[in-house]
């Protein structure tokens, strides 16, 4: 008799069927991502221009300040290229982190009205940044052509590093989105984190300028691994990868993502009551 029922709601239950639910709601994931993209580019001129201008302007400033004024090394690669190769993952990380961390609050009307696996919300919010990333990547291709730098076979390894960037921002985003629901003033932490991160990550400079004995520790910031990976894949031999550091970064990313999942799942049950 009791086995006739499709769904049993009990305190603490609901986890069992979570993955099946996510699969069932996969279309919602696409629709939410599609909605966010649509809304973002509805005011087309501003939407696209913004995603083009921001990295370009930052690149110019960094080239001027770090390249021309501070005369930091660029390992023989044009300084703008070196900066932009880092801007690609960094912009992606920063955008998706802020989108992700606000996603639950922004969709609170949905959370309190309809059931679906909540994980879909932050996950789909990351997709908008993927589109932005695509646009930025096109510009980078243009820059490479302009400077006459051709990528080599290492470029085929770009996707794994992109995946690592995705995991980093999603892992951190899961943490922040759940914390944002619980502690509403957490949203002020995110812009600070992003701004701070821009300077402690090797975006405007090469990680090679960090003294050798500190290099390994520097990779405790997972974005260092991601950015170095991008530079290595895009600009070739001028930026050799510090592999032990890279492994540390990667392990940290995995830890971040796993703990993010765990925390999100734990908090998820009470979202509708708190949000």
């Amino acid at each position, binding site marked *: 008799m*009791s086995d*006739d*029922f*499709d*769904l*049993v*709601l*009990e*305190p*603490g*239950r*609901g986890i069992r069927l979570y993955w099946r639910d996510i699969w*069932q*709601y996969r*279309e*919602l994931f*696409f*629709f*939410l991502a*599609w*909605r966010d993209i*649509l*809304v973002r580019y*509805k005011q087309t001129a501003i939407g696209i221009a913004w995603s083009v201008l921001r990295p370009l302007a930052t690149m110019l400033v960094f080239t001027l300040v770090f390249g021309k004024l501070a005369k930091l090394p660029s390992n023989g690669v044009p300084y703008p290229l070196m900066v932009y190769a880092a801007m690609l993952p960094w912009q992606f990380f920063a955008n998706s982190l802020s989108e992700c961390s606000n996603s639950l609050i922004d969709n609170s*009307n*949905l*959370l*309190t*009205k*309809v*059931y*679906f696996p909540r994980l879909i919300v932050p996950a789909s919010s990351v997709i908008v940044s993927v589109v932005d990333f695509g646009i930025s990547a096109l510009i980078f291709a243009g820059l490479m052509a302009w400077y006459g730098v051709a990528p080599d076979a290492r470029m085929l390894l770009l996707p794994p590093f992109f995946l690592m960037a995705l995991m980093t921002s999603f892992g951190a985003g899961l943490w922040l989105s759940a*914390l944002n*629901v*619980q*502690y*509403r*003033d*957490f949203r002020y932490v995110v812009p600070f984190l992003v701004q701070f991160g821009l300077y402690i990550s090797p975006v405007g400079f090469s990680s090679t300028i960090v003294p050798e004995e500190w290099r390994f520790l520097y990779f405790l910031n997972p974005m260092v691994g991601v950015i170095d990976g991008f530079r290595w894949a895009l600009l070739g031999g001028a930026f050799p990868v510090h592999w032990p550091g890279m492994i540390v970064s990667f392990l940290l990313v995995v830890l971040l993502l796993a703990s993010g999942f765990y925390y999100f799942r734990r908090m998820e*049950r009470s979202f*509708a*009551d*708190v*949000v």
Partner: protein
Amino acid sequence: MSIVISVENLGKKYLLHHQSGRQPYVALRDVLSDGIKKLGRKLTGHGSKRTAVAEKEEFWALRDVSFEVRQGERIGIIGRNGAGKSTLLKILSRITEPTTGRVRIKGRIASLLEVGTGFHPELTGRENIFLNGAIQGMNRAEIKKKFDEIVDFAEIEKFLDTPVKRYSSGMYVRLAFAVAAHLEPEILVVDEVLAVGDAQFQKKCLGKMEDVSAKEGRTVLFVSHNLEAMKLLCLRGILLDKGQRLVDKGIEETADCFEALIQHGVFSCNPSSHVIFSKGQPPDGGFDLLEVSLVGPAGSPIAFVRTFDTFMFKVTFYSPDVYESKSASIFITTFNGRVLLRLGMYPFSSFKMTWKKGINEVLCQIVKLPLPAGSYLLRFGICESQTGEWLFERDVCHFEVLSNDVYNCGNPPTERLAAVVSDYAWQLVDD
């Protein structure tokens, strides 16, 4: 019909944070400063556990609620604000988890909890149909199949490619309802959607829900403050109050209990409350009134009456002998004794009857009680039908008439406005 929802001892507890005041959520700075304060108290030895406990208060939005729903039933869930209706629906639609108890559900459940949930103002009607469908758990193929029907139902063909932020609120509601109504879930949960939209569309929605339930065997759970709409749609009603299930009966009866609850503030709909007078002692040998109770037109006991209700007084009295020529009367009077209604037997009317020796039970039906809401006195008397000499007479009890919006204007008649109520009509004579 099989059981599609089984609710057992369901409870939902919320913690109220008194300290953080009006904000339902917690600010990290508060948590930090509280923590530091507590730490400070601990260190200085001023720590008192009591204050920490008082900051949080438990609140049971639902408590020990159990019921079962069979396939194809249309159930109205009634209750005052904060009675737990929405919490119940939220648990059923999986938005929030129960604290205790268990719910078992068979089939897909879709909720229409608020009009336009998940509508994005920047997107067009077409885009929103797809988005909203997806949010409600439909896949693209299903939405495509239903698309034309939805547009038809919502009557928005012309505005399909207009952003919904430019829609009128009526169009918005129509579109939202149309999407939800075409979901084809086995169980549809509807919360207060009909508060908006024009009367014609409301009718259409009710019709659609009835169709969905009657023809397609779907189950509908319906929450609304619109009792009339609920009576039209539902057959069964569940009355919740303070998180508990008070009544689970036919919709009419449940709605009546709800009105009594609102009128009196306290719940008085227990099975025996249809008895408005009871002597409680054996008859004393002469003519004696033993009990007066209220009976509905169908013969079942009712707890109260409203303006224009048709109902019966059931009077139990003792007659010391067999009589053919005695006359009984029920009077409804004001508190200063003015008789508003006299419901008498012959010679005050043509009703004649023979009483037996001992206990007699008589029924007196009033068709469309013409009294406005208010308090009255009930008097009962027995007299010689020839001479009119009183053999028994007494004021029996208070008699309450509850309000009823008989003129459909949201302003039910009360005794302060007029002493009696009747049907009437106005019209403009134009020549």
